[in-house]
């Protein structure tokens, strides 16, 4: 089904069901204007009857209003997509800082609602568990809503939170069970975060994830910045997937400007994005081997990762691909000789990775630690709206390169990796299989790279638009509003780690203490990407 007919079919079906809402077919998306009363039913209809996935919730506060004011009014945009390539946007207005929670039926929206609650001070009626989330009750006072317009983001908030008086939540009340905290500073080089493991001594009965120790307020500090300045943030809030996030951000800008990215630039973008995926997965595999104590496996994995980083440094001038993406195409492009080195280096690395996979899958002591470990059921994978490799290892086939193609992906053959068991081993197989698919994509494009400019002239145009990319860890959506002066007025980033960390606590069934780092490594998630 083509996107256009997909949109009109869905529009018709929704008009029949919900006669009292205004539904526009905007060509690139279905725009539904709904009252807050209708929001819940529409959202549930989209996800339950029409197979849509919840993508993102972007809130905007109207005009100049005080941070303190309860009566502030907001526009809320709920984005959904169907794997027929249809994007749906529901717009609703709230005049009393209240919105109905949709997360009791659409659990994937749970953390998005909690984020909006913390950031905007919006109350989600019917949401069961609000409070300590992004703004920890330990450090932040009540009633801070940093995304509100009046909030001065340059200054530290002077009041303090509860400090040591804060008590971690206990989810199970059982005699003999105690809560064992892991973090926020832990392990050798782990990212900061807190995991509270409830345990009678060895087996983990329940895990509670407390993130956002690394909250840098990226979406707020970007406000008022030029688009070129905020691009630095887009690349750097999650440096391990810098290109993917930079690309999603630039696609939103290009949509506003009606900018056509030239063919060569499109192809180069795919090459770089797939290269980043390979490097990201290689890192995850090295970490996974290390987490099980398989030092030789880790060393081999890191050796490949380092080879890829050097290749990146040599060809793209930066080991983490900073400074390459730009609205309109690329900021600059490597010459043919450099691209030939990329081709050569990548083939060698791909062979090394194949060999590493063979060695790992022949190491029974390693497999024993990841098989049937950290299993995410398909039911939970769906319920939590998990994304990326984590989802594809649990019998979901979502991949924006195929379900909502951007750039030139609709003309490329992307085989979506797919495993069903949802355990650590299935995830590892997904990582390796995605590496193969990405390497093949790069090889194909390098062999038929079109001539032409690496960028089109680009000028900033005000307005609001959504850009998306299948980042290494899964789907990411960047919603941007650019004001009349060409500055960032609002930026909402939905990151794959955000969604997947939400489901993380579900995977400890049967796990013991020593499995915790292994399960975490097999997830391949970034805390920095989640915390923003």
């Amino acid at each position: 089904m083509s996107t256009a007919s997909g949109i009109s079919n869905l529009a018709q079906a929704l008009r029949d069901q919900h006669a009292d809402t205004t539904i526009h077919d905007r060509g690139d998306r279905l725009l539904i204007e709904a009252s807050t009363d209708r929001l819940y039913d529409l959202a549930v209809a989209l996800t339950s009857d029409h197979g849509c996935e919840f993508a993102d919730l972007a809130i905007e506060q109207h005009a100049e209003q005080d941070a303190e004011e309860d009566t502030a009014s907001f526009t809320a945009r709920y984005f959904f997509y169907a794997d027929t390539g249809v994007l749906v946007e529901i717009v609703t207005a709230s005049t009393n800082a209240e919105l109905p929670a949709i997360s009791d039926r659409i659990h994937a929206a749970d953390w998005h609602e909690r984020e909006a609650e913390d950031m905007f001070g919006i109350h989600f009626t019917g949401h069961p568990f609000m409070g300590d989330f992004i703004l920890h009750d330990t450090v932040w006072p009540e009633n801070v809503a940093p995304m509100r317009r009046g909030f001065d983001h340059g200054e530290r908030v002077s009041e303090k939170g509860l400090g040591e008086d804060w008590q971690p939540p206990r989810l199970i009340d059982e005699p003999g069970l105690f809560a064992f905290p892991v973090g926020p500073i832990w392990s050798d080089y782990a990212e900061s975060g807190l995991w509270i493991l409830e345990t009678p001594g060895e087996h983990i009965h329940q895990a509670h994830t407390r993130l956002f120790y690394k909250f840098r307020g990226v979406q707020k500090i970007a406000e008022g910045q030029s688009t070129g300045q905020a691009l630095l943030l887009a690349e750097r809030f999650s440096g391990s997937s810098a290109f993917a996030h930079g690309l999603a951000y630039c696609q939103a800008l290009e949509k506003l400007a009606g900018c056509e990215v030239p063919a060569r630039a499109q192809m180069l973008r795919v090459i770089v994005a797939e290269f980043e995926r390979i490097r990201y997965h290689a890192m995850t595999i090295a970490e996974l081997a290390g987490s099980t104590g398989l030092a030789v496996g880790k060393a081999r994995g890191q050796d490949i990762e380092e080879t890829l980083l050097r290749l990146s440094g040599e060809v793209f001038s930066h080991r983490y691909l900073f400074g390459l993406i730009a609205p309109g195409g690329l900021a600059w492009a490597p010459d043919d000789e450099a691209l030939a080195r990329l081709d050569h280096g990548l083939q060698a690395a791909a062979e090394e990775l194949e060999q590493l996979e063979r060695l790992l899958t022949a190491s029974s002591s390693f497999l024993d630690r990841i098989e049937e470990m950290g299993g995410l059921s398909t039911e939970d994978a769906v319920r939590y709206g998990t994304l990326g490799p984590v989802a594809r290892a649990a019998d979901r086939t979502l991949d924006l390169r195929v379900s909502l193609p951007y750039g030139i992906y609709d003309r490329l053959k992307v085989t979506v990796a797919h495993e069903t068991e949802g355990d650590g081993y299935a995830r590892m197989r997904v990582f390796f299989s995605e590496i193969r698919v990405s390497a093949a994509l790069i090889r194909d494009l390098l062999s038929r790279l079109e001539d032409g400019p690496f960028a089109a002239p680009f000028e900033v145009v005000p307005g609001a638009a959504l850009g998306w990319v299948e980042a290494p860890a899964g789907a990411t959506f960047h919603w941007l509003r650019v004001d009349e002066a060409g500055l960032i007025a609002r930026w909402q980033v939905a990151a794959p780690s955000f969604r997947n960390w939400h489901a993380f606590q579900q995977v400890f069934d049967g796990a013991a203490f020593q499995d915790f780092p292994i399960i975490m490594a097999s997830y391949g998630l970034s805390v920095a990407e989640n915390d923003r």
Partner: protein
Amino acid sequence: MANWVFHSLSRGIRTTRWPTDPETAAGVTPGRPRAGVGSAELAARCPTEALFPHDNGVGVDFGHCVHCQRCRHGDEALAWEQDFTWTSKPEQGREALPARFSRSIHVRYIDAGACGGCMGEIRLIDAPAYNMHRVGIFITATPRDADVLLVGGPVTEAMREPLRKAYEAMPEPKRVVAMGVCAINGGVFGTSFASAGGVAAEIPVDLVIPGCPPPPLAIIHALLAVTGRTEPAELVENP
């Protein structure tokens, strides 16, 4: 059975010989712009004010350079050097640790809001290519055993206290290294309601490593400088 031994031996020694011999392999560092001839327009291209116009051309403040490469390409560009010996000593930085530490120092890394760039590079200092143990650098899990606190990230609000507690828990003598421009002055995250704008806002800093991110060899260079085995470089360069 996987024959790891055979496969590993067949690959030979993969470890750099730096600092004994120079390391010039392509891609070990992103390099950095050097002060030189250039117009005020070139300096103005820098989004972080790391470049400044000077009578003789363009100067560079490495503490602000985020490797955005905007001064690297195009008609007018600065020359980049593929070095990595970037570590620098701020004015208030304490002297190097005594010689008895020089064969073995223990480092506790703290993620105070670092992105995957700095996180990725710090993990690699013990990868085969760099193998920090060969130069007597060890990572320890607790600050109580640490001689050096290596900190990445702009120091987020929720990491201020854990960072200070970790520093206080360390035995004397102790040193602090701020890794990456975020840890030096907040980097692209700056000073805000959510970020302290660098490590020095919370604890004393003895050495800084410019870079976004500094590559593994730049980190090793800094950790060697902690015990006086390498010399710190200048943070600001005039043409």
